[in-house]
């Protein structure tokens, strides 16, 4: 029993649905197992907690070999929107919520959300630009402090 994971700190650094969801699912899954979970959003991963963007995150159809189709198709207007809508429908059936609802669910489950200071400065964002579930804007040093004694996962 002693080698059970007690705490995870997950870094979400990539944008797009395929960049954001894995970290959210792992954080929520950790809480479901009674594991303490921290989420640290950085670079384009920050879209997931930015009020203006969190509801509009799409799946990348260009330069994404996982789409199993030529990238040339992916540049067609509306293609990304269509692929996103298909993916969202499938996920909804599996009870995987849309990003804003997922963020709320993780926060309600006791997960802690943080925004990366360097990215905030770079994109000239303010605390008000983030959804209410974001605990605070922290630097890398503080992140390591919060993550101390647990596992760190980078996505």
């Amino acid at each position, binding site marked *: 029993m002693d080698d059970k994971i007690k705490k995870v700190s997950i870094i979400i650094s990539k944008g797009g649905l395929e960049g954001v969801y894995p970290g959210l699912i792992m954080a929520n*899954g950790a809480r*479901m*197992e009674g594991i303490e979970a921290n989420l640290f959003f950085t670079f384009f991963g920050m879209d997931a907690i930015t009020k203006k963007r969190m509801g509009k995150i799409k799946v990348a159809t260009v330069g994404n070999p996982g789409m199993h189709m030529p990238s040339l198709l992916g540049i067609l207007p509306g293609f990304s929107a269509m692929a996103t809508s298909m993916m969202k429908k499938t996920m909804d059936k599996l*009870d995987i*919520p849309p990003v804003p609802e997922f963020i709320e*669910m993780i926060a*309600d489950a006791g997960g802690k959300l943080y925004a990366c200071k360097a990215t905030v400065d770079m994109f000239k964002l303010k605390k008000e630009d983030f959804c209410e579930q974001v605990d605070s804007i922290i630097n890398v040093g503080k992140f390591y402090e919060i993550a101390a004694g647990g596992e760190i996962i980078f996505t």
Partner: protein
Amino acid sequence: MAQKQYGPATVEVDAEGYLSDFSQWTREIAAAIAKDEGIAELTPAHWKVVEYIQKDFKENGQVPSIRKLNKSGVISTKELYELFPGGPAKKAAKISGMKKPEGCV
């Protein structure tokens, strides 16, 4: 198949103590499983969750997810985590006499 004593009864269980046969479930057994899971007493709020899970399973053949419990207005996610600390979906399912939930969310 393994057997386990829950309160007044000995029942068929899987390797993790989930009931193998729901027809053996009783409220006394539920209370005993809850104690095993660190929940000293099942309050009316707990029972509301248990009853919904059983009803939903009967209708859909699936243990409802945390999201469904929240959306159906049975219990908010926050309260669910408070009522079943350290693993709400699994603990609520176990107490309700269900199999271990297999979904990731």
